[in-house]
Structure formats: structure tokens, C-alpha cells
């Protein structure tokens, strides 16, 4: 993969954002991200096909047939194949997987892969209705007003009942602190402008069940975001065609995909079992161990999901994720830095774009293009891992990357 491009993750927190003023829409984000990639790969004529990941433009923007926005980026993409894929918040990595399969099948050498979502078209309380479609529609009536925060609040509650109240709470707060500290180093991050000197206190704030959910506060949650991310998935042949040296590309070493039954509640809410399975497959297909991972982009739609991801990867035992985080292991200076540009909590979560954004962050880190966010990548731990999740641990894609040369 090469030539990633992220737009700003727009929403509350950004200075440019004003809920009552007009903002860019799908068209602007798609065009900006698409052209951002095309510029790096020598133009649209080098592209064989395109994939766009998007969750819910049909409702957020009353827009379907998203693949037809690909030629809107550049007339050079007219009449080329394009497809839209959807797997809720995991749409971005599903788009990547689709592009990767096409390259592996040798039906394409250069695939433009994009993810996009524009969510600030409705108030959060109505956005919650739309996002609830990532769960089983027949479960919506029983669900919380804020459906997904409700689901992960239930997981947090179960985790705290099983492993104690305080340490997980502190770890969730620490997760928030890490996310904001990382986001402050990345100019496209939604929390880039965050100057609060009370991050820890914010993270420790008591949940407010009357207005929100039982076991999470608002700082535990990812943001409502608008944005697009795009990257080129290329074969070795394709890399030559676009004229980019191998040293500026990352290689997909392994990939794990896993799907679980949307109509079923988790067997054990304190475990992300599908995530665990996807990561296992990814590491296995890459032929590496978790000890060789230098950095991880995990799907922290909620801080509790960050703790559970640490355990799903196997970095800590069941119930040990909180302690692992509190020891500083996931900080940018820690043993295995997580979400180095802020993750979903700090960088933002334009749902359909997130999986692509994660891959771009890994690409930046492994090729030394991360700017102020750059972390050192050691020879012992040269691999990057992404975990992108759709729904409540339902649609999973995990990918292992390494610098191509």
C-alpha cells in the first residue's frame, strides 16, 4: 500500500466546526481524499479500479450508489470498475480487503481504496438511530437511546463487575489521555485543537445514566466525525507503474477476516471474541507473533473496546488489559504504542473511513512519514497491526503490515 491521504476529521473539537454553519459534504471529502492519492500515484490513468467503503450515507446524506462518486474525483476514473462495500464501522477495512483480494487475484495492479462518512448532518440523538443499524434491527426497540454507547456500556459494566470497578475506570481514563495526547500531534485529528489540562479528570468523570449511559462517560466515546481517507493498494507491478520506491510503501503480510452472527448477543461481554479470532488469523497468516508488533491501530470506538482489544490480541490476560494500559505500555513511549494519531477517540471516527485511516497511520509510521506523530520503529518489532470492527464485535478485519523494503 502507498500514497495514503486523510482529510481532517471534522466535528466538535475542531475550531473550524460550527454546528449551524454550512460544511463540506460527501462530495468534497471524497474529492479531496481521492485527489490526494491520485496526485501521489501519477494520476487516474494508473488506477485499474476503485473501492469505496461507507456505512450509512443512505441515511446521513440520503445518498446511495456511492461507487459512482469515484469518477467524480477525476474524469480519468470514468468507466473504470468501482464498488461500494459496507460493514458498518468496519466498512473501511472491508474496502481494503476487497482491494487486496483484487490484487491477489491479479485482476488489478492498482486499486484506489477509500472510506468516507459524513455524520454531522443530524444531531447525535438521531445519529444514534442511524448507527444502530450496525446492530440487529430487531434489537433496536430494546436498545438504549444511544444504542452503541449502550452496548459498550454493558460490556464495561460486565467487565467492572468481573474485575473490579476502579482499575478499569482508571484505564479507560488513561486511554482517553493517551488518545488526546496523540491527537495533539496530528493536524488532521479532530482533537488536534484540544488544549485541556484536565484530561485525566475528564476521563474519570462519573457516568450520567439519566442523560447518557450507565458505565461510560462522553470522554470514553469516539467522536461524531466527517471525513474521508484513501490509499492505493498495489501489486509489485503496480508499484512500478506508479513510480514510487518500495521504501515508501508498506506490504500486507497477513490478513484475518471474521464475521459473527448479528442476531446474537456476545457469549461473554468481557471478551471481543470475533476480534480475537480475526487477529489470530492475521498473525497466523503473517507468520509472526504478537511480540513482533511495533504498533497497533485498534478500534477504540469506546475506551472499553481499547482495553478489550489489548486482551483480544493477547498482550494481556483476560482481565489484565486495564493494568497493561495503566502501566503505560500502550502510550506512544510505551512498549507497543497504540493509536499513535489518536485513534477513534482522539483522531475521530468517520465510521466508513476509519479502517482506511488506520492503514494510513500504519503506513505513515512504518515509512517515516508520520511527522510530529512519528514513533521509532525498531528492527525487532517491525510490524504494524490494524483492527477494524463493524458493529458490536461482528464484522472484523485485521491486517498485518511491514515496510516493503
Amino acid at each position, binding site marked *: 500500500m502507498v500514497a495514503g491521504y486523510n482529510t481532517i476529521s471534522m466535528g466538535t473539537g475542531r475550531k473550524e466546526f460550527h454546528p449551524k454553519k454550512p460544511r463540506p459534504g460527501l462530495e468534497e471529502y471524497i474529492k479531496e481524499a481521492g485527489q490526494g492519492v491520485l496526485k501521489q500515484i501519477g494520476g487516474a490513468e494508473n488506477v485499474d479500479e476503485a473501492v469505496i467503503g461507507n456505512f450509512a450515507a443512505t441515511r446521513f446524506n440520503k445518498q446511495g450508489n456511492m461507487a459512482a462518486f469515484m469518477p467524480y474525483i477525476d474524469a480519468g476514473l470514468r468507466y473504470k470498475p468501482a464498488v461500494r462495500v459496507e460493514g458498518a464501522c468496519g466498512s473501511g477495512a472491508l474496502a481494503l480487503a476487497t482491494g487486496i483480494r483484487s490484487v491477489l487475484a491479479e485482476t488489478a495492479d492498482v486499486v484506489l481504496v477509500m472510506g468516507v462518512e459524513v455524520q454531522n448532518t443530524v*444531531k447525535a440523538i438521531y445519529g444514534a*438511530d442511524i448507527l444502530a443499524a450496525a446492530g440487529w434491527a430487531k434489537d433496536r426497540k430494546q436498545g438504549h437511546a444511544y444504542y452503541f454507547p449502550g452496548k459498550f456500556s454493558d460490556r464495561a459494566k460486565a467487565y467492572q463487575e468481573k474485575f473490579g470497578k476502579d482499575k478499569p475506570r482508571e484505564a479507560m481514563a488513561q486511554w482517553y489521555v493517551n488518545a488526546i495526547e496523540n491527537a495533539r500531534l496530528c493536524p488532521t485529528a479532530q482533537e488536534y485543537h484540544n488544549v485541556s489540562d484536565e484530561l485525566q479528570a475528564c476521563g474519570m468523570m462519573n457516568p450520567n445514566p439519566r442523560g447518557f449511559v450507565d458505565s461510560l462517560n462522553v470522554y470514553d466515546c469516539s467522536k461524531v466525525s466527517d471525513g474521508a481517507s484513501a490509499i492505493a493498494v498495489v501489486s509489485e507491478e503496480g508499484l512500478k507503474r506508479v513510480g514510487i520506491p518500495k521504501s515508501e510503501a508498506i506490504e500486507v503480510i497477513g490478513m484475518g477476516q471474521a464475521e459473527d452472527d448479528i442476531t446474537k448477543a456476545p457469549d461473554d461481554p468481557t471478551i471481543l471474541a470475533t476480534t480475537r479470532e480475526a487477529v489470530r488469523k492475521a498473525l497466523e497468516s503473517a507468520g509472526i507473533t504478537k511480540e513482533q508488533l511495533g504498533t497497533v491501530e485498534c478500534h477504540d470506538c469506546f475506551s472499553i473496546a481499547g482495553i478489550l482489544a489489548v486482551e483480544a490480541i493477547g498482550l494481556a490476560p483476560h482481565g489484565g488489559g486495564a493494568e497493561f494500559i495503566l502501566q503505560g505500555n500502550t502510550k506512544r513511549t510505551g512498549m507497543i504504542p497504540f493509536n499513535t494519531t489518536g485513534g477513534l477517540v482522539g483522531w475521530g471516527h468517520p465510521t466508513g473511513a476509519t479502517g482506511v485511516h488506520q492503514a494510513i497511520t500504519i503506513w505513515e509510521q512504518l515509512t517515516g512519514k508520520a511527522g510530529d506523530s512519528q514513533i521509532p520503529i525498531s528492527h525487532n518489532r517491525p510490524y504494524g497491526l490494524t483492527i477494524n470492527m463493524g458493529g458490536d464485535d461482528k464484522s472484523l478485519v485485521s491486517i498485518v503490515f511491514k515496510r516493503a523494503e
Partner: protein
Amino acid sequence: MNYTERLSNVAVLGAAGKMGSGILLLTALEMVDLSLKPENKGKVFVIHAIDVSSEALVGLMRYIRVQALKAAEKKTVQLRAAYADREDLIDNEEILRQYVDDVMLAIRPSTNLEVAYNSTLIFEAIKEDPELKVKILTQLDKNNPGKPWYFTNTSSIPITQLDEKAGLGGRIIGFHFYNPPAVQKLVEVIKSAHTLPEVEEFALQYAKNLRKVVVPSADFAGFVGNGHFMRDALHGISEAETLAKDVSLPEAIYMVNKVTQDYLVRPMGIFQLIDYVGVDVCQYIMSVMNPFVKDEDLHSDFLDKLIGQGVLGGQYSDGSQKDGILKYEKGRPVGVWNPDAGKYVMITNFQTSGDTRLGALPASFQPWKSVAFAGRKEEMLTAMFNEIKSMDTFGAKLAKTYAKRSKEIGLKLVSDNVAFTEKDVNTVLLTGFFHAYGPINNYLD
């Protein structure tokens, strides 16, 4: 008749007015919330919105629709539970729309007073005119066989007078909302000499359910809020008139307005507040209060003159400020009325000379909006007033006199037994007028 039964058939008089519309909204929401309780399923709740203007009632219904949705959005978590048995309502959006529909279905707009003849609770928010209020209350009570209870929103007329003249036998209480009722947390509750204990008990429960801060006031014209505000305003007018011996009256008004807003850290200067309430409303409230006060004359020739010139202030139906003593652009004062010339003078004409005359603001100055909600509010105010105390500028002197007078007014309300405690006076100014601190304080001692 229990709390719920009392609220099953309500009427609001003057429903399309600024106060009436807020009272209607809050009461309709409370009624619909009651109707959603399992024990009240199937019961009918009706609220009559009565106003003389058919046109205004149309605007009222639009206002209610918008505000009811906003209120619903804030309590979606509760509403999902309340509509849990409605299997057809799944998304938040469907539930919130149903709630708004239920609110609209409870409201019956009308221009006929007769519809209130079988109401059990009647809110009165008509013009602040004692004779008109007595006339309407008398007519209603004569024709309503159910011995209804009356909540009057008067801000100045003694409740005992209304009670006795309309022959209500204690079925009335003063329930004075602050403007706008949907936002302001304060209500002054005033018993007449005869108010029945069950009326008061209901009033307090209703206030609690609406999450209002209740300050009881003695039944003395103007009560606590206007008791302070009218005297405070007269002081401001008098200071400006004195100052006008040296500078033009518009410049003097500008200076006093600035001192009351900036030096005294208030949300708006005193002349802007008079405009906000309405120049004519202020004059009228003073005229209602004046016969009841001894040793004082609550009256202003200045306000009379302005009203004669058609300078009225008040607000447009969308809540924006009309021109009054000050002229406004986007809600900010840009000019001052010159009564002698009969026109506005732009502030830019005398701003520099006025500011120079006042002298520099204290170094620790912070505007009201940075102070009122700050965690370090006490610290900020202490620092600023300490500085003002030691300052010798003209602005600081005006501020000191003004704050002293404001405190004096507050203390007199307590010594005259209008307010029951000093804290009550401060609560009224803090919550009803959004001041950053109460007038009875020791900052300048």
C-alpha cells in the same frame, strides 16, 4: 383532587405572550409527562391556550412545536422508557415525534375565555393591569363551577388584592416566572393573606417537578425581584441625569450602562435591562407598586418622556431586542436615544470621551460571561472588587456608589419584610437576573 387530577384540565390566559407561552410550554410538558406514567394511561389531559390574538396563537403553536422537540431531545433516555410499550415506535426519532404530537394534542388554542369554564387550574399571564386581572378572574370564577385554583404571574400586584377583589377565597397564589420561563430557573411564590395551604403545597410540587428554584416572597407590591430591579433602575436613571449636567444625556446613559455592565460584572447594563423588560413595562410596574410604598416615589419622569416619544424597548416575537433607550444591532447597543433631539445618537460619537472620563477598567477585569460560570468566580470577584475599592477613577466611584445602593435596596427588602432572608434576595438576583453575585455582599467593605 390530587396533583395529577389538578393538572388534567388547565387553562393559560395570555398564552401567546412572552410569559404565557413559556408557562404553556412547561405546563404542557409536565402534563404529557404525567400522561405517560403507567397509572395515567388512558386519562385525558387538556391545556387551553387562551389569548386575544388569533394570529399570535398560530405563532405560539409553532413555538411550542419547536421547543417541545428540543425538550424531548434532552430526555430521550426517559422517553424511550415511557414509550416502551409502543411497539410501532422504534427509533429515537419516532419516539420524539410521538412525544411532540402528544404535546400538541394536549393543547387547545382559543380566543374564547369560556373554554376555561371547566378548567381545574388556571394560569393568568395577561397584561399587568390590576383592574383587568380582577375583572377576568371574577368572570371566570363566577362561571366555573369547579372552584378552580388560580396561579397569577403578576410581578407587582399584591395577591391579596386580587384574591379579595375577585372573591377567590384563597384559591390563588402568586407564581411569578422569570423571563423567559422555559430558561430561567427562578420562580417567586407569593401567598395572599388567604391562600389555602393545599394551593401552596401544589405550587411547590409543581415548581419542583419543573426543576425551578423557589424563592418565597411576602405579598408586597413588586415582591423581591421588581422590588430590587425598579429601585436599581431608578438609581441608574438618577445617576445618568446627574452626570448629564457635565456631558450630553446619551453619553451619560452610555457611561452608566457601561459601569453597571462592566464594573459590576452584570450580564447587561441597567439601561439595556430596562429595554429588555420594556420601558413601558417598567413604568407600569412602578405605577402599580407606587401606591403601596411609603417614604419613596417609584416613578420616573424620564421614562414617561420616553414613552411619550414612542421609545418602548421590549422584544420581537423571535426574542430579539427592539430599540429602546438604546439602539441595537445584532443584539448589541450601538446608539443611545436623545430625548431632546428625538433621535438616536451613535455610541461611536462619544465612546472615547466617555471611556476616558470613566478611566481604565481594573486590571483584573473580566466580563460577566467569563466570571458567572467560572469555578474560580469568588476569587475573580474578590480580586476585581478589591482593585475597584482602591481605585479613584470616575468609573470606579460610580461603581462603588452603585453597588452600595444595590446592597442598600436588598437590605431594605429584608428589613421591610418583603424578602424573608438576605439569601433569598441574593438568590433572586443570581437566578432571576443572572447576576454573578448577590447584591448583599461584603466585596466593598
